[in-house]
């Protein structure tokens, strides 16, 4: 039984490493053609990557700017304009008892005035509890949070308030300084008049572009102000935000959540990204046609070689795989070069844009391009998929080559 070897059909075909090496050597043999094809793919995929990276980068900038330090698992609760329902201990308790509510942040805020040394500035004065500090990323850049401070009357100042008073040069020097706050509270409760109190700076935060300061909510509570300005409700999961919101609204309150804004921004950017990919797609189509052309010409040129390989014992699956490897090598190398090129171009453009921005007085650096791993992997996988699609026809033709006709070809 020499022919019908029991394992004849199961015998391994050519090792994949060898097929890859044969494919690689063939591509190297036609250096100019391979380089041009890879360059075509690199430009096409680079254009798509560059535009998507810009889209994601700008989206990130906008999200950071708009949503900023708000957690998307939080819901802001306010009273409606009629003030028919109030945010007091009873309603806070009812909200806290809603299922999936994890934490409640209480806040008062009033317009007021702050004074350090001889500098004075109008500001919004927030009275917040620990829950509020936990639910809001206050972006502490110096010192400690209110809840971590052992001071009796601690205060957090934001950078904008210090800038307004010209004290933002050395933030360390601001710590432990005394700040005098005055808040007219007569509108809230007639007998309270004007609150004047001295606090000690325990930390500096980077939030908002207007002057904001944060003190403990107990101060206002101690004055008998039981009606809170706003609640921040922390939900255990983003999925539950909408359910909790509707339950809170059923109690007569108005709610808003950073999720709303985020969803809106994402929706707009989805559309923008599709348009950007559309532009990049034109380059991609040219690259795909170039790759198809290269593989087809390669097949025609190598018909005799493929015939020879069949005569020497190659199986049709081996020849199919050989072409698939060539397509994969072209698409992977093209997409890696394209992504690296787009990444470097992004860095250069970002540097230029930051330079122009600093010339116009924007000192905070920004990054216009985002390079998340998912985008890099996604683009490479996409190109591999395209490569496999492009090679279907040439590889099928390679499989069907008749070795006798092929060897007779001149």
């Amino acid at each position, binding site marked *: *039984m*020499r*022919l*019908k*070897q029991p394992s*004849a*059909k199961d*015998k*391994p*075909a*050519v*090792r994949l*490493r*060898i097929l890859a*090496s*044969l494919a690689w*050597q*063939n591509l*190297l*043999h*036609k250096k100019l053609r391979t380089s041009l094809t890879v360059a075509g793919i690199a430009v096409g995929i680079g254009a798509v990557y560059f535009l998507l990276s810009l889209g994601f980068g700008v989206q990130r900038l906008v999200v950071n700017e708009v949503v900023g330090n708000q957690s998307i698992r939080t819901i802001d609760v306010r009273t409606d304009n009629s003030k028919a329902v109030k945010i007091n201990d009873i309603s806070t308790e009812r909200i806290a008892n809603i299922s999936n509510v994890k934490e409640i942040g209480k806040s008062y805020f009033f317009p007021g005035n702050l004074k350090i040394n001889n500098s004075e500035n109008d500001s919004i004065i927030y009275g917040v509890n620990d829950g509020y500090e936990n639910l809001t990323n206050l972006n502490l850049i110096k010192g400690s949070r209110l809840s971590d401070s052992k001071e009796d009357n601690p205060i957090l100042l934001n950078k904008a308030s210090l800038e307004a008073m010209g004290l933002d040069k050395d933030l360390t020097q601001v710590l432990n300084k005394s700040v005098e706050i005055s808040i007219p509270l007569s509108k809230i409760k007639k007998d309270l008049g004007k609150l004047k109190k001295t606090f000690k700076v325990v930390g500096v935060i980077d939030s908002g572009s207007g002057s904001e300061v944060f003190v403990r909510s107990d101060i206002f509570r101690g004055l008998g102000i039981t009606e809170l300005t706003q609640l921040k409700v922390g939900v255990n999961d983003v999925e539950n935000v909408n359910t909790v919101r509707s339950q809170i609204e059923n109690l007569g309150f108005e709610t808003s959540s950073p999720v709303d804004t985020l969803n809106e921004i994402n929706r707009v950017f989805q559309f923008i990204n599709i348009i950007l990919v559309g532009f990049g797609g034109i380059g991609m189509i040219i690259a795909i046609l170039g790759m198809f052309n290269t593989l087809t010409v390669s097949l025609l040129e*190598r018909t*005799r*070689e493929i*015939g*020879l*390989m*069949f*005569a*020497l*014992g*190659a*199986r*049709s699956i*081996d020849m199919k795989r050989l072409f698939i490897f060539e397509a994969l090598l072209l698409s992977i190398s093209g997409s890696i070069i394209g992504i690296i090129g787009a990444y470097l171009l992004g860095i250069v453009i970002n540097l230029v844009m930051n330079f122009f921005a600093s010339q116009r007085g924007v000192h905070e650096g920004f990054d216009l391009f985002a390079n998340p791993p998912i985008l890099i992997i996604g683009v490479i996988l996409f190109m591999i998929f395209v490569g496999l699609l492009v090679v279907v026809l040439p590889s099928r033709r390679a499989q069907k080559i008749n*070795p*006798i006709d092929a*060897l007779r070809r001149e």
Partner: protein
Amino acid sequence: MTSVKLPVDKSLFTTNNLMLTYTSGDQEVTAIHPCSLQIPEGSITVIYGSSGSGKSSLLNILSGLQKPTKGTLNFYGEDVYRQSHNELAYFRAHELGIVYQTNYWVKSLSVIDNISLPLFFQGESKESAHQKTLDALRRVDMEKYAHKYPVLLSGGEQQRVAMARAIVSDPPVIIADEPTGSLDTENGNMIIKLLQKLQKEGNKTIIMVTHNLEYLYIADHLLEIQDGKIEQIEQDKIASTVRSMLSDTRKRITGLMEDGK
């Protein structure tokens, strides 16, 4: 089947009413007329015929590349063309070493990789295939050309390298299609000697196609083919047949020369 005295008892290939036809335009052309023949194991079989006589068609059938229109081809008693495509590929990779008249190469590969191809198709690793390739190259005295590209070698050198490719997987059968066709006498003789050596020392079965009377002397077994009709010449009649062929040729040439005057 006519009884023909073979140089050895055991048949490697046997054909049974094997026939090959093809259509050219509206016409059906018979490339191989029905034939039943044997190719003995471990001997040199020469297929002799003029251009277009059907030699290459017969060789393609023996190589497992061309399915006959009718009849069967058996290899060690097994019907070759009842095998699947993959098994035919396995047959070509394991049982046959082929040398062509024209040197066919995969141009992007060096000599060592070109010769390793039959081993690659058997699933061997690069390291092991290269090792065997260097041995094969040593046997044809071409080891120093291992890392050159074959197309850069002379015709004679290329044919020797092609011999190395045919023997690299140590197949029992070497099929040589006009292996001396494009060579000068010196290189041609060298290839013929190599084939003889392989048969004698390696106990290979050699099947050589030629249209050159000069090399018929090496045949243990002769198949003469004319217009697709194959005649098996018995071993003890080979010498007289060759003499008769030479005499016919001489007569034809003399006649032509006299007509020319």
